[in-house]
């Protein structure tokens, strides 16, 4: 199992470093931009054309730093860089083997396909989620520099909720990768579907059916107020488990 994990992790190492640096840099920039943003919020709210985004700004106006940070760190940072990282790294979890013609070599080893998929998914999840927690924790330490404070519990709970959301996207990507023979195709499909969902979030009337409606500012406002959306987080995890089970079944049946 260690050999499998190490082999997969070494291919991800530099991408994970890049992803973490981007996430961290975006978070630090957002925190230090906060004083300027706070002072210009009313003017910005008038300029933004989409109702859903105007609502976000209204929340910032009413509640201050927590919704601002939630938008910057989780709604924008983790979902943007997280989705990019998932599409980039996760799409190759199996499709890359087909793409690079190494599938026969790997799957003729005396190790079950199920184990290969589970170990790789665990490594991928760690690679995607650990930076989410680390950058959120470092935000707790940096925020006092702009005169603000992030509560530990709420920040970790919000990170966990985001982690559940990203786990669902990881599982979807793994499933697409198992079905695909080209990494690029699987990656493009993930990015395409997520962009489509974001576009849907910007259209009033159908925005509540977008994936992004589940990680919008109102959700994080509730988490900040101590109301963790257990049911929704459970749905994310159940969907992830379902897609991973399906991916395992399909991989067992796949020929190369």
């Amino acid at each position, binding site marked *: 199992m260690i050999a499998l994990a190490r082999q997969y992790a070494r291919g991800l190492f530099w991408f994970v470093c890049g992803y973490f640096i981007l996430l961290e840099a975006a978070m630090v920039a957002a925190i230090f931009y906060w004083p300027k943003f706070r002072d210009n919020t009313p003017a910005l709210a008038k300029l933004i054309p989409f109702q859903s985004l105007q609502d976000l700004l209204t929340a910032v106006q009413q509640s201050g730093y927590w919704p601002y940070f939630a938008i910057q760190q989780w709604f924008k940072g983790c979902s943007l860089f997280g989705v990019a990282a998932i599409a980039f790294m996760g799409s190759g979890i199996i499709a890359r083997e087909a793409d690079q013609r*190494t599938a026969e*070599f790997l799957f003729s080893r005396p190790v079950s396909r199920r184990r290969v998929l589970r170990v790789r998914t665990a490594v991928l999840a760690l690679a995607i989620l650990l930076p989410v927690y680390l950058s959120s924790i470092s935000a707790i330490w940096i925020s006092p520099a702009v005169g603000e404070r992030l509560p530990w519990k709420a920040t970790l709970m919000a990170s966990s909720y985001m982690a559940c959301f990203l786990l669902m996207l990881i599982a979807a990507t793994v499933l697409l990768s198992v079905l695909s023979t080209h990494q690029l195709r699987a990656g493009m499909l993930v990015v395409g579907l997520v962009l489509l969902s974001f576009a849907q979030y910007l259209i009033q009337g159908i925005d509540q059916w977008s994936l992004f409606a589940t990680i919008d500012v109102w959700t994080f406002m509730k988490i900040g107020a101590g109301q963790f959306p257990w049911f929704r987080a459970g749905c994310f995890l159940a969907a992830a488990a379902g897609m991973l089970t399906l991916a395992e079944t399909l991989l067992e049946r796949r*020929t190369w």
Partner: protein
Amino acid sequence: MDAEPAVFFDQVSHAYGSQQVLRGVSLKIERGEIVGLIGPNGAGKSTLLRSLVGILRPDAGSVRVCGIDAVRDSLAARQQIGYAPSETALYHQMTSEELLGFAIAFHPKASLAVGLALLEELGVPRDRRVGKLSHGMKRKIVLAQAVASGGPVIVLDEPTEALDPEARRLVESHLRQEADGGRAVLFSSHDLTSVERLCHRAAFLCRGEIVRSGAAAELAAETGRLLHLELRSPLQEEQLPTRTGWNWQGQAVRWTLQHNDAVEEVLAVIAGLPIAGIRDGGGSLEEVFDALYGAAAE
């Protein structure tokens, strides 16, 4: 379990969509035996080998490795097999040593020391990244990990392809040693001289069926001998002399005669033909191949 053959294909059939690739193939390989699988491209050699290592499930029939059902208990069966695929696309970011270690990590009886010694003998630098190695070097790594896996069965798909003559001899010598030590070796190849030198038995696959199997000399005797003729002027098949057991293949000025008679007798019969050149087939596997697949092509 030792009484079981090392590998046993029993009536194995497989199709890719509507294309039937294997048609009821049966073949038994005992421990200590080296068997070469011969056939033209698309005959089903790789498909048959892949059914051993769980890359594909045959549609019908059974595959057993040391008594273990390779379809139902693929994992246990794969633990018995050191497999070298024909594909040399490998994890290019790893070094030769790392790749070898990864490849054999899942085999319970594997020995990294054996693999490394073989790599050294074959001249593969152990600390060079695989992506920077030549096709032949990658082939050597793939072969080394199959031997180092330590299982009782070694399965190689086109093992000597891309190897220089010295490396080929080294690999053949190692495979002989492994067979002498009781391991069964099954490999597919287009290199008929290599098969002839190395194998105890050869099996000819044609359009998904084993059409001949046996020791090289026996096969040559069964198939008959061949004479290759080059004529000064073109002739039709009806113009060529015939006898019982004779079979002419070819056209115009190039003809091959398959026969079972003494060469002197044959020469006496064909003496009247306008012969420009004549060459005796000599009863090699290549002759068997020509006879089998020449007939199949017609």
